[in-house]
């Protein structure tokens, strides 16, 4: 089945709609499509919805914010992963290649260690992600040797392992009864307990960063060529690379700050999207965003409902991502289509 933009986008939006219906339909208070429609209409028209107040509360204050957070985080990670796979000319790259996730994780465990509030922990995570990537970029730019992209990746790997050591050290120091479980839970990723105020720090960076990446998507094709070839085609690669890295880091750090570390989404979804609409980044980036939102929402619904206690998102994405990726490797037909 060759990729087709129209059919591919229909599938992506269909999956997104299905994911939203499932997310509201499953849980301790199932909300059906008709109730959801009535509530949305009531919200738009200002008329009372006629639904039991407890259902309204679930939708507006509990399920709704969580659904929106899942959609935003999924879309953010997928778009960042797509952009990075092109920028680093490598289909096995995920958004944390430059240390955005490990930096955010170190920020978060430090926040938990010093018993900061939830806002403080989220801010520490966000700042940690930005600082880590900023440091990688600064170090990489001073080491002016050969291919700048390769230097950047190697610096990211080195700094990432140092950050990993930092995370290990803070966990080792942490109080094993109060702090360590919180750190572990956070490092595995979860959207449990997401409320309306949590959406504010997520929404701004994700919309801004995604808008930049979507706007630059037509240049990402040439950006995925070797450095000198891209410049010979008229692309000012230096500033463009800074813009793409900054935007992708912004969305990744915001999503890690809101939901903890959720691996695999940024790696797997770009491939799924490529499978649907082909490798042209002009079409790929928007489709990856839609698909990423739907994908993470389905996984979050599973996380809420599959077991009596919440399953961490990072566990589910790995359990689903690993076999998927092995299948992908087995069926890759020469080059990454």
């Amino acid at each position, binding site marked *: 089945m060759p990729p087709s933009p129209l059919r591919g986008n229909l599938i992506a939006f269909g999956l997104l709609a299905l994911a939203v219906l499932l997310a509201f339909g499953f849980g301790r208070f199932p909300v059906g499509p008709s109730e959801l429609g009535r509530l949305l209409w009531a919200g738009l028209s200002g008329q009372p919805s006629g639904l039991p107040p407890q259902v309204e509360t679930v939708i507006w204050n509990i399920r709704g914010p969580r659904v929106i957070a899942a959609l935003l985080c999924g879309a953010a990670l997928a778009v960042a992963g797509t952009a990075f796979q*092109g920028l680093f*000319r*490598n*289909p096995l790259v995920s958004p944390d290649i430059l240390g955005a996730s490990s930096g955010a994780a170190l920020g978060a465990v430090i926040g938990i260690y010093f018993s900061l509030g939830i806002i403080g922990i989220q801010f520490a995570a966000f700042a940690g992600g930005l600082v880590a990537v900023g440091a990688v970029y600064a170090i990489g730019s001073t080491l*002016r040797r050969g291919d700048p992209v390769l230097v950047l990746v190697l610096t990211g790997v080195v700094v990432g392992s140092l950050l990993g050591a930092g995370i290990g050290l803070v966990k080792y120091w942490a109080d094993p009864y109060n702090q360590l479980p919180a750190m572990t839970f956070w490092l595995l990723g979860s959207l449990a307990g997401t409320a309306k105020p949590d959406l504010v720090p997520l929404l701004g960076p994700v919309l801004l960063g995604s808008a930049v990446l979507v*706007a*630059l998507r*037509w*240049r990402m*094709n*040439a950006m*995925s*060529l*070797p450095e*000198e*070839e891209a*410049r*010979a*085609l*008229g*692309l*000012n690669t230096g500033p*463009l690379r800074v813009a793409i890295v900054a935007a992708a880091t912004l969305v990744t750090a915001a999503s890690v700050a809101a939901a903890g570390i959720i691996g695999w989404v940024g790696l797997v979804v770009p491939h799924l999207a*490529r499978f649907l609409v*082909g*490798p*042209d980044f*002009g079409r790929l980036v928007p489709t990856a965003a839609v698909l990423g939102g739907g994908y993470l929402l389905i996984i979050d619904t599973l996380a809420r409902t599959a077991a009596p206690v919440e399953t961490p998102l990072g566990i589910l994405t790995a359990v689903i991502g690993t076999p998927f990726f092995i299948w992908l490797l087995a069926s890759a037909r*020469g*080059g*990454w*289509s």
Partner: protein
Amino acid sequence: MSLSAGGLAYGYPERQIGSEIELDLKPGEVLALLGPNGSGKTTLLKTLLGLLPPKGGVLALDGRPLAGLSIAERARALGYVPQAHAGTFAFSVFTVVLMGRTAHGSVFAAPSGHDRAIAMAMLERLGVAKLADRPYTQISGGERQLVLIARALAQEPRYVILDEPTASLDFGNQGKVMVEIRRLAAEGLGVLFTTHDPNQALRYADHVLMIRDGRVLAAGRATELLVPERLEELYGVGIETIRDGEGRVAFLPGA
């Protein structure tokens, strides 16, 4: 009107590769750049394309210093055909040629209908339009080289610079690519290519520039310069010359 270098020194920030390069490429001409491995050909090409700043001397495009032009301005004047490689992503052949239009749109712009029409026209000009929807990773080496030439032409340049265009091609494809190069010059483009085959230079180039260790060994008309003595000096091996009844010659190395 020419791409010209005078007393040009070139190299990397920390290391000079060559100096005192004199070169003048006019529209409608084919210039072959010959030199042994490691002679500094590729670095010179990068400098001529504006990818490396000159380390001294003059480098001008139609009278204006090349370093004073923006990256996009350079790309609209100088088309570049790198050595063919498969690439990471399985872009369609059409998408690859469309990338040649990068310098003609703004940084946020989607390719226009005009861009698409030019990309398609260039595929047709090179006779590979039927490959448009095929993944670039799945076509043959010879086809890739033709597609990359189409991409360079989509830049609508006045000069085309090719880096060893026949390096990894079979005998037949080498012929095809060289015939295309001659045709580009006939259509008014200035063409510069590097090659390891003096026979190619003799048959398809008007002028030849021989460089060795970053210096010009000789420059001039292909027919005058491509003689066994010069080639022996350039490559450091004996050269056997074969002549046919009509006076045409071919060279064999290592005699």
